[in-house]
């Protein structure tokens, strides 16, 4: 197997608030290979976005990366100077955000903005960047790109703005594209179109994609590999098909079970995960999921499980499954 494109090792990001230290990302490690699509799923506040922002070194104050490394093509991004990091952002790793309605600067024409990474990184003048931007807008399915490039963001619908953001991310053909909940703010049909577009550009440009979402359906349709995060840690990872068919962590199991099914009896109540995500300032002792876990054993409340191989292809941080117990069908 070739060396991974991006390798995150024991990443720790914390927010130093007056209430205490929030361990938003607490020892996350993973690899991303060229051309691969990796999904990161979890509830709100489990550290998905902070992981992505940490890779980009865009953690807002009072947050700080306190440990670990992010190796991109062998270079540790955590140790780079601000100027070196600017070179990486947009040129090697691009990121698109959740809310396309506010991610474009309202005072500039869309075409100019889509071409801006080229002006920044490849010292192109505005005219040739604009030509390239128009070409990219066409690629992401903006009808009439020549004319639409001259529009302002408020002339674009949400779906079109997200297309424009994707176009902006693609102009420099980065090696990694991080999409942080790219479809959450869009309605379902537009979601499908945007996901289709992401799949399409992933194939055409061969870039590795990290897709962050809380929508398991999105992951199932898009990603080869999936990581499930809980309380700032990865609790399970593995090939998407295996993780969804045979979850090896009770949290994954609960997530899958909570998805409403179209063919279920309509009078049947939804199955939420009882309780709420833990306080990241003062997480519970032992496994952070144990207070909500349906399968917990005594050990879970005082001993913290580590991510270990469970089964042939998956890894899970759970004493129960590591001991060989199979979880029931979700």
């Amino acid at each position, binding site marked *: 197997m070739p060396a991974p494109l991006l390798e995150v090792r024991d990443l720790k990001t914390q927010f130093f608030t007056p209430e205490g230290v929030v361990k938003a990302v607490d020892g996350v490690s993973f690899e991303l290979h060229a051309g691969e699509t990796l999904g990161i799923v979890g509830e709100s506040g489990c550290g998905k976005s902070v992981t992505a922002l940490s890779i*980009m070194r*865009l953690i807002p*104050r009072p947050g700080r990366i306190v440990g670990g490394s992010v190796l991109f093509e062998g270079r540790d991004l955590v140790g780079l100077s601000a*100027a070196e990091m*600017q*070179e*990486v*952002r*947009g*040129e090697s790793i*691009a*990121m*698109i*955000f959740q*809310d396309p309605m*506010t*991610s*474009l*600067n*309202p*005072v*500039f*024409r869309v075409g100019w903005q889509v071409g*801006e*990474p080229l002006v*920044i*990184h490849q010292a192109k003048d505005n005219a040739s960047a604009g030509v390239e931007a128009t070409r990219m807008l066409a690629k992401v*399915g903006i*009808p*009439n790109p020549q*004319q639409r490039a*001259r*529009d*302002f963001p408020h*002339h674009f619908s949400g779906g079109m703005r997200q297309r424009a*953001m994707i176009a*902006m*991310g693609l102009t420099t053909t980065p090696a990694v594209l991080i999409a942080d909940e790219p479809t959450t703010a869009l309605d*379902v*049909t537009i979601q*499908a*179109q945007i996901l*289709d*577009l992401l799949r*399409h550009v992933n194939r055409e440009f061969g870039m590795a994609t990290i897709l962050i979402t809380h929508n398991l359906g999105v992951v199932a349709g898009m990603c080869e590999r999936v990581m499930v995060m809980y309380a700032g840690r990865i609790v399970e990872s593995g090939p998407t098909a295996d993780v969804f068919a045979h979850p090896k962590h009770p949290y994954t199991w609960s997530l899958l079970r909570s998805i409403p099914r*179209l*063919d279920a009896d309509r009078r049947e109540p939804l199955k939420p995960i009882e309780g709420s995500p833990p306080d990241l300032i003062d997480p519970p002792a032992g496994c952070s999921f144990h207070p909500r876990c349906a399968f917990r054993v005594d050990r879970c409340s005082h001993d913290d499980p580590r991510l270990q191989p469970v089964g042939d292809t998956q890894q899970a941080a759970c004493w129960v499954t590591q001991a060989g117990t199979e979880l029931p069908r979700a």
Partner: protein
Amino acid sequence: MISPLPIEAPVPPSTAIVARTSRGYWREAGGRLRRNRIGIVSGGVLLFFVVVALAAPLLAALITHTDYRSIDLINTFARPLTPSHILGTDELGRDELTRLLFGAQVSMGIGFLAVVVALTIGACVGLVAGFYGGLIDGLLMRFVDMILATPAIFLFILMSILFKPNTITLSLIIASVGWGSIARLVRGEVLSVRTRDFMVAARAFGASDARLIFRHLLPNVLHVMIVFGSLYLGQVVLIEAALDFLGLGISPPTPSWGNMLTNSETYFFHSSWLVIWPGVTIFLTVLAANLFGNAVRDAFDPRLR
């Protein structure tokens, strides 16, 4: 069983939304300004004074046929509408209209220069303070607080004594106090704009701090600066006239509307036009500047719509 949604729809073949002109924020604001009748009239008055100031030597040569310094001791206190002295003459027989024309140079010159200087310094300080926050913000804003907490007239008097006032130094003196207010306004606006997603997005695409500040932030706070600048112009004209009147501004023989007033107060009951002409001119200019400033604010401030 519900049939699956047709999710295989890569590109919507939409050609419905085509020929529609793009109207940006600036064009829309400009359109609103043009539809404001008071704004247009007051803007016209200001423009008139600017043209007068620029063309003062030409107008003096063509219309009044005299120089603002030429003393005519035979024709002192000529009444208005005297042939060859439309607005009369002063105690030294100098033509009042000519002096007003050249006074416009002082008022408009100082007015615009002070506005530009105050806006430039204030915007830079406000942008930097708001963008970086923390210690930089604290230091810069406390400095602004200090300046704004000191009585302005005291600062003006002090600096007028330290530096010999001419058009340039007087503009700088006035601007050295005025930039504080705009710095505060710009900083406040920056605080709300900098947290918007497009700032994070631009940073994620590799934009440097300088690019973020001047390319992405500045255009988003420009409307605050335009509104402040146009309202501030009236204030500057008034401050300048007041300093001249106190003898701390432009000193004779260079005529300014303010020092023309100083000169003539002695003759108020004797030759009231010497007070009325510069007084009315200052009043008109300040009124026009304020009305125009209000019109600009109505057109540019999105919160007022």
